[in-house]
């Protein structure tokens, strides 16, 4: 029980456990005292210069004379409904974004993109035979090579079957 109080005040207890524990803290004086002492320890560690004695007892005394307050009926329900509605709206928006993004890359868009790629592909150009030697000698400077920077270390050779 004490360990649960410690975890609750650190905001690390699961919701269902927290609700039942809060019931026990409210209605058990020993448990309530543990809640008070643990909070006191935290406050002393954070602000040792300001630890007034017995303030809560005085507030409690004054509260005794106060009429019990009640929120208007349905206030809490409205609050919950609003939270649920906002969550639902957020989920729908997220789904909408995902659907819209998937539409952007839908199967119908695939062939179009492929066609565009085909259109952009360079055509084969008939090169004059005498230009081959020039291109071979300067291929290391070509930006289209996949081996930029490495090409200069590769020795290029040519093979002609009619030569020995």
């Amino acid at each position, binding site marked *: 029980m004490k360990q649960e109080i410690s975890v609750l005040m650190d905001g690390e207890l699961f919701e269902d456990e927290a609700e039942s524990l809060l019931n026990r803290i409210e209605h058990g004086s020993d448990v309530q005292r543990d809640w008070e002492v643990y909070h006191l320890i935290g406050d002393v560690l954070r602000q040792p210069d*300001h630890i007034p004695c017995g303030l809560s007892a005085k507030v409690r005394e004054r509260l005794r004379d106060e009429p019990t307050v009640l929120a208007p009926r349905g206030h809490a329900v409205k609050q919950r409904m609003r939270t649920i509605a906002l969550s639902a709206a957020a989920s729908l928006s997220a789904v909408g974004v995902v659907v819209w993004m998937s539409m952007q890359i839908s199967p119908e868009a695939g062939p179009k993109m492929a066609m565009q790629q085909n259109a952009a592909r360079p055509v084969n150009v008939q090169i004059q035979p005498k230009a081959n030697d020039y291109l071979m000698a300067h291929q290391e400077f070509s930006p289209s090579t996949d081996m930029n920077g490495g090409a200069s270390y590769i020795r290029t050779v040519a093979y002609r079957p009619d030569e020995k």
Partner: protein
Amino acid sequence: MADREVDQQLVERVQRGDKHAFDLLVSKYQRKLGRLISRFVRDPAEAEDVTQDAFIKAYRALPGFRGESAFYTWLYRIGINTAKNYLLANKRRTPASTSFDAEESESFEEASLLREVNTPENELMSKQVVDVVQASLQQLPEDLRSALTLREIEGLSYEEIASVMNCPIGTVRSRIFRAREAVAENLRPLLETSKGNRW
């Protein structure tokens, strides 16, 4: 359940007519609110009166609290307004800006009836509490002391502490509890001797 959600749970209980739930909120925030108010109202006895009054005003206003902000933000706002109005009622200059609602102003006669602060006995008691907590902390094994310090002073979550201390979250949970309980064990005999027996 995050800390803010625990407060919201307690607030909803108060809104359903459960006064005990408000006691838990008072226990939790009395010193934080008191410290905030003492920045406006310098005299400790007056600051305590204002703090009491701020809690009573918060209790009365709680049916209208909709949870749009955190409870402590709302409570601190009431505390600051109460302090400023107290200074205005006493024709004293507020340390910060003076944008506040004059309707909030009210008398503090009721609070002054309960004024018992700053007696030598209370001052001694507060000092002893601080001494016991600090001495107990120093006596703790290193791993317990680090876990409690990272949680209470640095405000880290269990997950963050587990990462810093390189241990499972369950170990962090256990270390923090054992540290608190060890300090509380030393503190309880002292608290039982205090008037009213409540902190």
